């Protein structure tokens, strides 16, 4: 199925999917959008591997080794990489653990926590090891555009995508620039 549509991939790393939900708040404009874009790897398509795309939207920062792998695959395959939301840009809420040693976090959650049954720190080859600190994605790869906000407003997604489709620089109005 080949067409002239612009390919877009999206993923959520150490995020809460709130940015994706906000993206869907473009509402009926999504009908317009799918006339021009085709979604590649994304929670919206369930495609697991990212192929060559014009735009990659990355929600969330880096909290484990799998996040780093996915981010690198996005960087290799996407012409433009967009850091979407507070967590991708500065680590966000997950990075609030950065001042607590990782071991202490795990022990509080899985060993000493209130109501914990069968206390043990989960370990399995399918569980990606956590990084010592949660990092914003620009500390690991080059990022082309940033959409701040927790989450960014739907209109910010719309402005970014229409700008790229129209081959111009995105320009976020004052009302679309916020960190909360």
């Amino acid at each position: 199925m080949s067409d002239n549509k612009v390919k877009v991939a999206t993923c959520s790393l150490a995020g809460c999917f709130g940015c994706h939900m906000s993206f869907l708040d473009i509402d009926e404009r999504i009908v317009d959008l799918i006339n021009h874009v085709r979604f590649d790897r994304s929670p919206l398509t369930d495609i697991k591997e990212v192929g060559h795309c014009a735009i990659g939207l990355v929600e969330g920062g880096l909290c484990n080794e799998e996040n780093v792998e996915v981010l690198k695959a996005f960087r290799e395959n996407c012409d433009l990489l967009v850091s979407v939301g507070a967590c991708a840009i500065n680590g966000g809420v997950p990075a609030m653990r950065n001042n607590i040693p990782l071991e202490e976090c795990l022990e509080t959650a899985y060993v000493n926590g209130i109501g914990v049954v069968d206390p043990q720190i989960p370990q399995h080859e399918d569980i990606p090891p956590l990084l010592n600190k949660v990092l914003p994605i620009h500390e690991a790869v080059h990022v082309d555009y940033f959409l701040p906000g927790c989450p960014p407003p739907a209109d910010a997604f719309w402005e970014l995508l229409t700008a790229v489709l129209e081959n111009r620089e995105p320009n976020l109005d004052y009302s679309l620039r916020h960190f909360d």
Partner: protein
Amino acid sequence: MSDQTIPCIELNGKPIPFQAGESIMQAATQAGVYIPHLCHHPDVSPHGSCRVCIVKVNGRVKASCITPAEEGAVVESECDEIRQLRKRLIQMLFVEGNHFCPSCEMSGQCQLQALAYDLNMLDTHFDHFYPNRAIDCTHPDIILDRDRCINCDLCVRASAQIDNKQALSLGGRGQQTHLQANCESGLLKDSGIESQDKAMHICPVGALLPKNNHYPQITGERIYDKAPISEVGNVRPENHQGDQTKGPIS
């Protein structure tokens, strides 16, 4: 003739009068021209530490809050070069502390955040320090959240110069610089600071906070939700009601 002429600087192409001894910042404020600033407040002596108020004076970059106005000086406060330098300064302040705006009581009312918005700062650019900073909750009415403190020294000066208390001071050096209670225990509860002190009503960010009455303003109606700080000025929540700002804009 010349000794009767009021001395002027040229600010962004327009003549601005000043009185002998005034800084460029003071002259600009009098003339209603906003120059971004964080560690400056008209009620206390200048500090010159945040550098956000940089302007070009006869081609050289200087901090306007500590640079005296001089007859004929050509000053630019909004050229691209200055705006870019200012944005980098704001980004440094963000990565140097721990600023998680979505959960901050001052979000939407914070002057650091508002300057970031106004400078079209969309990212933090630098690597984050994620410093480990202690919070002080010992006072019955006041919290000091050092994660968000930018060491601007405003509360220190307000306490000394207006409250006549010297309840606070900056300790340490370089990256270790931190706000401390100026007493043997180093704790807020022993510092003599009180809610009605000027020191409690001058913080440009969400660092020195009252323990009650958080998030009183709904999103969309906070100080910097609708208009940028360059139009609204550095306003504290207690001096702001809806679209009305009480008192002079600084």
